[in-house]
């Protein structure tokens, strides 16, 4: 007599899901961290673009005339900065430019910073005009708030992509390395368990977490920041699946032989850290020199984030992102088969 016993694939997948959900840290990183991160960045980069430029003036009667002129101009906030604090203030962004009351005035600013450049131009404009410059004409301005063009809108798809990478690689690799370390893999293959089912269960468990992993930050951004989602949900789902598969396979490859948590942590950081920086999570990858662009563009995270932004923000079709999907496909298939060949159960 045997009782009804669930399918091993179901039991293996359940075991993986239970292990994950009973690890509070893992749940935090997967679901809470993206929200904390987007809140923090929304605070640091407010959506209203009409921010004043910050101008530093040294206190005292010499700056009196300048102060009056600048304070009367639109879009300028004046702050008193003593000469000895000047460098620090510029570095920290407390002021974007310092105006020294010489004749003509001297501007101290950092030309490498966009906001510093802007502040110099705004200040110069205001002072020239006050000094009697007559403009040839005044352009008509049509300020636009294009939905989806704010930093937070741009950032959320990057955050989702980063989450898919981190959770995908850790989610697969950590459990496997831990099971190998605890000789559990060896114990499992001493039973009639099918190896393919064990590996499939790891991928299935990942698959079941995906909806929450993507929807939590996406819905949060829609509700909290009014982020527009212009893409077709099915297209978004396909991109997410391609990304998850790619990073899952990559994680599987990393975990194929490693026997300690320290070693897998090192490998993971080695693989993920460069992509966090160059793949355009926090700032556009186009900031990097043209010479290394070919490398950046074939990284899986670059492809995933490009595709997510195109689909979510611009409503791009599958056809428009096919090169990104191809990159993800290659990064999924090659590591997957390499992992199967290399995998050690001992």
């Amino acid at each position: 007599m045997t009782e009804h016993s669930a399918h091993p694939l179901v039991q293996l997948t359940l075991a993986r899901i239970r292990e994950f959900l009973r690890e509070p840290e893992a749940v935090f990183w997967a679901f809470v961290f993206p929200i904390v991160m987007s809140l923090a960045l929304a605070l640091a980069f407010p959506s209203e673009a009409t921010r004043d430029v910050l101008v530093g003036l040294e206190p005292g009667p010499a700056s009196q005339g300048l102060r009056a002129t600048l304070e009367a101009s639109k879009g300028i906030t004046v702050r008193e900065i003593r000469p000895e604090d000047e460098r620090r203030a510029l570095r920290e962004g407390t002021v974007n430019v310092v105006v020294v009351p010489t004749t003509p005035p001297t501007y101290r600013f950092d030309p490498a910073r966009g906001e510093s450049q802007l502040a110099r131009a705004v200040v110069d404009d205001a002072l020239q005009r006050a000094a009697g410059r007559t403009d040839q004409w005044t352009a008509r301005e049509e300020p636009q708030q294009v939905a989806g063009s704010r930093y937070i809108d741009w950032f959320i798809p990057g955050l989702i992509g980063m989450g898919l990478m981190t959770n995908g690689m850790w989610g697969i690799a950590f459990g496997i390395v831990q099971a190998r370390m605890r000789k559990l893999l060896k114990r499992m293959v001493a039973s009639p368990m099918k190896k393919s089912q064990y590996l499939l269960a790891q991928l299935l468990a990942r698959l079941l977490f995906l909806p929450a992993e993507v929807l939590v930050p996406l819905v949060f951004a829609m509700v909290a920041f009014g982020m527009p989602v212009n893409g077709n949900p099915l297209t978004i789902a396909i991109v997410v699946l391609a990304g998850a598969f790619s990073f899952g396979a990559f994680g599987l490859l990393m975990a194929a032989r490693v026997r300690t948590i320290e070693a897998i942590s090192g490998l993971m950081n080695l693989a993920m850290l460069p992509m966090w920086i160059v793949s355009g999570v926090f700032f556009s990858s186009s900031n990097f020199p043209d010479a290394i662009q070919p490398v950046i563009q074939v990284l899986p995270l670059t492809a995933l984030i490009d595709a997510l932004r195109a689909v979510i923000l611009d409503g791009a079709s599958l056809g428009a992102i096919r090169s990104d999907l191809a990159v993800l496909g290659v990064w999924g298939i090659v590591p997957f088969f390499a992992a199967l060949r290399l995998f050690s159960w001992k």
Partner: protein
Amino acid sequence: MSEFAVKCERLRKAYGPVVAVADVSLSVRRGECFGLLGPNGAGKTTTIEILEGLLSADAGDIEVLGLRWSHHAEELRQRLGIQLQETQLPDKLTVEETLRLFRSFYANGRTIEELLQIVGLEGKRASRVGKLSGGQKQRLSLASALAGNPDLLFLDEPTTGLDPQSRRQLWMLLEQFRERGGTILMTTHYMEEAEYLCDRVAVVDHGKIIAEGVPQELIARLGEPRVITHHGTLEDVFMSLTGRHLRDD
């Protein structure tokens, strides 16, 4: 059907220049409890893992339940129960979830209720594995080895690290398994364990079997006790064969 549950001839396994198993031949009869006895590093674990089909031998001939690993691996996996020396079951799963997981791998076997009852963990079914005592973990490990209702049980140092009471408890469970007709092949470096449980033992040292037989006979073969003030034990057998103590501790 072969009268032997396990039969191996001239087993050999080397890791580079290190010979783990030099030359081991042994046969375990059906229904018997057979012990591989020896100090750490003697080659016991390598031998049992080769017989379990987890390691391949460099040379030698192996038959388990009349079958061969090269041809009948799947059937053998279904019919064997295996407990490894260092397995740590997942801490985050409960006792019952762990048993369900292992039970799902077998086409036929015992119910979860039976398994819990056999190892006396009914009251712990909802406890996380990480919260169990050493003895309870070892009983759970035994239960997962019994999930497929095996004919033959391989145990690698099943009571190492357990307190005397937990050890006794596990011995009783193994006796019950034998009373139901099961065969056991186990390794141990505890003399009293081998004397208590095993019908026959093979003393292994440096990858070779240096003595084999019924524990009492091996002890009797010692002849006149030399420095022995207590009654003879397998410890004395080992000492007289090698001039060393079985355990360093």
